[in-house]
């Protein structure tokens, strides 16, 4: 079909002015990809799909949403009322809102799988260091966008989550208090906070689009890694992105939509994981919820924060746990990329995945003395995994990598 389209006169007219044929060839029909990519390589295209869905649903939600913390009848606010208006009175507003709320969580599901794949198969290693680093920037912006967005319904967890997180800045010496006040727009979370978070919640996805463009550009410069983690140059080891990976990604999209739509249509709150129970209660600055916890995708970092008795140390550790991802390519100097041929690293990285899930569980649950210790051990391993990498490579008996795929 693409071939036929490219032979039309209209295409020739556009091509002479845009160089479209060259782009299609170099980026799709003659873009070489290793032929042995497994289904773990589907999560990149899925992340792009969810980003587009979030932006589209978000644009329509903004047509009805009102960012105002002005009180209305019964302890509600204009913002909360406008969300309920979307849910009840706007045609298919419920669909837009649930797609957006579930989409936020599913975005993190696919991106965490994507990052996990990169870790396991060594996709961050030479020559893909910048590709990885751009990816970490995307993760940080995503977390920011999700945090800002969660304030908008102005429910109890919106309000108290924002209060807890913005208070963290106070722990930073000298400038901290000032930064906190700038972020909140006053001395406590209130109407100015809601307005600036709304503005930033619209800005961050635009930044995401630009940086995702950079991510894809970097990928197409260095080309995909593969499960064997070896360089692939021979023509018989490569296949063209289109049609092979376009159809495989399309299949992946349909499979993903099965899960996504099941949640959207049948269980949008997902038992309080995707939309927290307390967020159906309007924000009340005089009543703290019994247990404040961020949404599941931020809980691993919340545990790291809580694992330190000193607030500043906790904040520094939380920042450090994300910052350390930037230097991962330089900590791990092993020549072998894929964990398949690095027995000790393989064990460590699988334990790291379990560790992050444990961290998430601890952050989601109400704090107990046992969970606190478990969280501290998990935090220790989180950092140990990265910091031990230079050492492990000295002892890891790597298996010989195959000549080709």
């Amino acid at each position: 079909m693409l071939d036929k389209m490219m032979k039309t006169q209209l295409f020739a007219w556009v091509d002479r002015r845009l160089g479209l044929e060259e782009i299609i060839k170099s980026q799709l029909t003659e873009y070489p990809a290793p032929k042995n990519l497994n289904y773990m390589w589907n999560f990149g295209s899925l992340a792009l799909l969810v980003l587009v869905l979030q932006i589209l649903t978000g644009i329509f939600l903004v047509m009805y949403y009102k960012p105002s913390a002005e009180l209305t009848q019964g302890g509600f606010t204009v913002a909360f009322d406008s969300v309920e208006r979307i849910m009840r009175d706007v045609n298919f507003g419920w669909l837009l809102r649930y797609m957006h709320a579930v989409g936020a969580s599913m975005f993190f599901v696919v991106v965490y799988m994507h990052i996990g794949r990169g870790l396991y198969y060594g996709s961050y290693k030479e020559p893909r260091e910048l590709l990885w680093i751009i990816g970490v920037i995307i993760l940080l912006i995503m977390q920011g966008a999700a945090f800002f967005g969660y304030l908008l319904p102005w429910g109890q967890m919106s309000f108290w989550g924002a209060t807890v997180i913005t208070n963290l800045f106070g722990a930073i010496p000298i400038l901290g208090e000032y930064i906190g006040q700038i972020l909140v727009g006053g001395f406590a979370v209130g109407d100015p906070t809601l307005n600036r978070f709304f503005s930033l919640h619209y800005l961050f996805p635009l930044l995401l689009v630009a940086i995702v463009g950079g991510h894809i550009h970097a990928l197409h410069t260095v080309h995909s890694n593969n499960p064997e983690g070896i360089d692939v140059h021979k023509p018989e080891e490569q296949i063209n992105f289109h049609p092979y990976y376009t159809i495989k990604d399309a299949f992946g999209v349909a499979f993903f939509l099965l899960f996504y739509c099941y949640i959207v249509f049948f269980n949008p709150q997902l038992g309080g994981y995707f939309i927290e129970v307390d967020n159906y209660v309007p924000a009340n600055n005089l009543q703290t919820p019994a247990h404040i916890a961020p949404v599941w995708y931020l809980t691993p970092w919340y545990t790291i924060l809580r694992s330190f008795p000193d607030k500043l140390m906790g904040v520094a550790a939380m920042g450090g746990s994300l910052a350390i991802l930037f230097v991962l390519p330089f900590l791990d100097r092993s020549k072998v990329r894929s964990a398949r041929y690095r027995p000790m690293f393989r064990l460590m990285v699988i334990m790291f995945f379990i560790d992050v899930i444990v961290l998430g569980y601890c952050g989601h649950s109400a704090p107990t003395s046992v969970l606190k210790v478990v969280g501290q051990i998990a935090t220790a391993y989180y950092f140990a995994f990265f910091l031990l990498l230079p050492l492990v490579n000295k002892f890891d008996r790597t298996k010989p990598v195959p000549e080709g795929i």
Partner: protein
Amino acid sequence: MKINKTLLAIGAISVLLFSTPVMASGGGAALSHAEIDVTNQKQIQRGLMVFADVCMGCHSAKYVTYRGLMDYPEIGLTRIEVDELRGQNSLLTGLISDLTIEDAIISYGVAPPDLSLVVPGRRGGADYIYSLLIGYVHDPENKVPEGNFNAVFPGNRIAMPDPLSWLEHDESETAELKQQANDVAAFLAFIADPHQNERRAIGFWVMCFLVLLTLVLWRLKVEVWKDVKH
């Protein structure tokens, strides 16, 4: 190896999808299961009557308008019934209690929460509402005044005085009161998300389509890839 990992990934996603959080209920007592059906017009209408006669003495449901009581087919009141219910109120106003929040605070010490979103807004949902209404007991330590001790309410001391008179009822009324508690839980579960039945009905067809689409794309993928040796 490859299949194992795929299975592992699917397993990990399924755990996330189908697990429900285990939350400690603050009141201690286990919740009873509410027999509710948010597609049952009869039950929702009976629940509305309990809501209007009992709950609305103090509580509002501001996001549900009188018009909504006609427009949502799951409630489906007639115009005459709605007119009788709303009195002087406009069709477009919500179900707002006559008791002002100031008066409520003078009488009970707290503002009665709006009930539009009470089912998703409480751990346990409709089961919690049902259990709360039939959860009034005598305080074993005799500290809390009669009618303010509830087995399932977090902290047990509740400002709302026994709305269904559960404490004083005799055996012959048990079934009737449980029915009322069930019905009002069903009504509240429905109004929390009035498009939920439409959503599930559309969802069924969406899932059917997606299953077909996934199968077609899977076969297409296999067909396109059949000459790639890997």
